[in-house]
């Protein structure tokens, strides 16, 4: 009975097809092309922001599709979100601290 249940949950797990992965790969390649093309144009301070936004979109695609976060349970998504949150907090705190040192 228990084993039947295990097998059942294994099969209901969302199965990503080959097509989805190839589509994501194509998007990643196109986004890489866009980053390289955009880097040649001078947007001033926005140049690095553009590069980072594109890199974040690529990361989101890799996390959700390649790393299966989309088909994992909510626990996993919360798990990863909390880790990212703490990374962002440490970035913000360090940068605010550094800008304070620079200004004084």
């Amino acid at each position: 009975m228990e084993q039947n249940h295990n097998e059942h949950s294994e099969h209901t797990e969302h199965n990503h097809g080959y097509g989805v992965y190839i589509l994501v790969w194509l998007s990643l390649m196109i986004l890489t092309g866009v980053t390289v093309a955009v880097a040649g144009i001078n947007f001033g301070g926005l140049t690095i922001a553009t590069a980072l936004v594109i890199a974040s979109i690529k990361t989101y695609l890799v996390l959700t599709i390649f790393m299966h976060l989309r088909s994992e349970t909510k626990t996993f998504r919360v798990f990863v979100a909390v880790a990212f949150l703490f990374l962002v907090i440490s970035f913000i705190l360090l940068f605010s601290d550094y800008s304070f040192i620079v200004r004084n």
Partner: protein
Amino acid sequence: MSSQEHSAAHVHRDDVGARMGMWLFLFTELILFGGMFILYSVYRYKYADAFHLAAKDLNTIVGTFNTAILLTSSLTMALSITAIKRKQKSLSIFFQMLTIVLASGFMVNKYFEWTAKFHHGIYPGSETLLAKPAGEIVFFGLYYVMTGLHGLHVIIGVVLIAFMMRFTATGVIKSDSYVKLESAGLYWHLVDIIWIFLFPLFYLIT
């Protein structure tokens, strides 16, 4: 007694726990590289002009090519998991082998890139480099440490995937038990994500 009999007949497996453990490890990697990205940001702010000047020495074409290689290797890794789920054992092994080939290609490019730099006398502690302004010394220091550590991760990934190939061939990894392959995949995709950020930050500042 009956529970002992049960455990003998049915090997305990916790795939969700295994994947969660792998994610936990990846978070430590995130902190490792995150610290370096903070270092990079502060120095880039401090030496903005020198970073722009120094980055001109890096070959954007090689960098772009390597990005494409690594993204494609991430694809083949993901495909190998789908293949094993669908009981296509040899196809899965083929995709894993392709991942290793692409990763090796990445490292070969890195080798040529680094030796070209060495040839121009640009390596940590070299006279040519030390004669440059402080900002450029810092840029190349960060370049060698960050891409070097990333390269080390690529090499570890190759060894890991080679083990997965063996496990798939011997039937340890099979259509209803592939969490090892999934974990190796998670590691590989993280290495890819780190490169997604390294690439624009080092090669695309003009």
